[in-house]
């Protein structure tokens, strides 16, 4: 059974077709990557999957349940969480607080529990804080728990954004260019990190330009260009695919 499946989805902005009749699926526990040149529509696809944009056509299913047309916040409760191409942490809040905001939808007490400090407030709040601390420790961020998010290094901020997404309880994580701006060592760490996420039972949809990461970590790859799928397959198949090389490097012949 597919965890996430998109059938013939299309989206245009005025005359520009950003995503054109795109089909793909992800099975549970897989790492699937979407690659393509800049402007190919990858981030638009993420925005569609997470409910920021609504498709003009097509259907999207999560666990066989249609999710297209749902509000972004509802999609999170269906188990999809994401990170952003340009990091969007709550920079004026502490690391643990970022995670706790991520856990908000599973933090089950009311306004009045908070106002009057009921027993329930303490129980739930303490549990969530402990879980958040555990999560941070499992990602190697335990030493930064009390720090403010904007004091973290770039790589740590990327990790925190992923931690925050995990805290929502989502099992499918959409990572938008996590290796952007990372050096060789950092992107190698990221590759290991993503493999670990997979071992923890997470399913991952990845947008990435760093081919070292993509080719080493992906179970399956979709290649996009001009909003269309131009190739799909396992990493070694994509590496030898001519259409892909053409999209990235241009045609070998000169057309006049």
């Amino acid at each position, binding site marked *: 059974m597919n965890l996430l499946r998109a059938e013939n989805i299309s989206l245009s902005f005025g005359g520009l077709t950003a995503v054109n009749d795109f089909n793909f699926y992800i099975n549970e526990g897989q790492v699937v990557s979407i690659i393509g040149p800049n402007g190919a529509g990858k981030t638009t696809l993420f925005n569609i999957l*997470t409910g*920021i944009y609504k498709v003009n056509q097509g259907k999207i299913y999560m666990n066989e349940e249609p999710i297209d047309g749902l509000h*972004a*916040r*509802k999609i*999170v*409760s269906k188990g999809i*969480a*994401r990170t*952003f191409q340009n990091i*969007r*942490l*709550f*920079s*004026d*809040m*502490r690391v*643990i*607080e970022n995670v*706790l*905001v*991520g856990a*908000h*939808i599973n*933090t089950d*007490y009311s*306004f009045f*529990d*908070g*106002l*009057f*400090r009921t027993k329930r*407030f303490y129980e739930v*709040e*303490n549990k969530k*804080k*402990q879980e958040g*601390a*555990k999560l941070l*420790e*499992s990602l190697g961020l335990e030493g930064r*728990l*009390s720090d*403010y998010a904007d004091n973290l290094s770039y790589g740590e901020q990327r990790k925190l954004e992923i931690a*925050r997404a995990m805290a*929502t309880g989502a099992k499918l994580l959409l990572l938008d260019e996590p290796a952007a701006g990372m050096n060789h060592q950092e992107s190698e760490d990221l590759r290991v990190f993503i493999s670990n996420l997979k071992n923890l039972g997470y399913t991952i949809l990845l947008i990435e330009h760093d081919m070292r990461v993509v080719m080493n970590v992906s179970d399956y790859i979709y290649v996009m260009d001009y909003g269309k799928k131009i190739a799909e397959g396992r990493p070694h198949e994509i590496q030898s695919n001519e259409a892909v090389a053409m999209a990235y490097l241009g045609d070998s012949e000169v057309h006049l």
Partner: protein
Amino acid sequence: MSEKFTVDKIVIASIILLLLGLPLLGFSQYVMRIVILMGIYTILALGLNILVGYTGLVSLGHAGFFAIGAYGTAYFMIQHSVGFIVALTIGTLLSGFMGFVLGLPTIRLSGTYLSIVTLGFAMIVQVVIMNWDSVTNGTLGMSQIPKPNILGYDLNLANHGIYYLMLFLLGLVTLGCYTIIHSKIGRTLRAIKSDELATTMMGIHIDRYKILAFVLSASITGLAGGFYATLSSYIDHNSFGFDLSILILCMVILGGMGTIRGMYLGAALLIIFPEIARPLMSWRFVVYGFVLIIMMHFRPQGVLGWRSRRKYPIPGEVKKSYRMVEVEE
């Protein structure tokens, strides 16, 4: 860490003691009235802080909520001879309801657009006050608003009852703000200020929280208004002009947005300053403006607007042993 913690506790305890014992120091009624005004403005700053400091929504219309609380309380005390506590509750709820009414259509607005709408709201409130003669007595204002009477005791300046009532309300609002801010509600409001889209992507219904912030902020402001009405025993539309909204905003920014301690300092400074600077005559407003400019240049986060450097408390300080378990998996 624990050292700083005890220093904080000592500071807070001595401030509370000082406030409780203040009437014993034998200040004149004039001074006590100013102290009570400080308390009212601290409550106002705490109310506006929920919107501006935590949620990042700048309102220029809080004089409107202040007026609704004041007129609501005064109206029910005078026209319906309702007791102070009930009237104050009605005034507070009325103001909170107007916060909801204003918050609902403005959730899509932010930044300057929201500020303009709230500014318009306060103007509308003022015009309604001037023209709704049967309720507000028009431009003549409402006079002879009774002093609070609780359980048969008249609370006034002479017996310090009204001072302690102010302390009680201030303590109540401070505690309420503290518990709300240090819960998932407060975290969400701060997250909204930081990044609305990212907050939505955490599955959070941000519109609901923005309206909640409006309602809370308006209720607290209305509470201060109701108390102010009984303190001054006379209110008219001039008490609730644009300059009041700006004054509260200045207190929030000067003290330190998004902090509770800052509201106390901001209100104290901006109420005391015009009083102690009387010898400067009309120059005091020049100095006043100059001080604000200097402050904003050198300390834009406000006088007390620092980030806590204290360790974030994790209950039970998660035992290290669980780490072993996870490695074994």
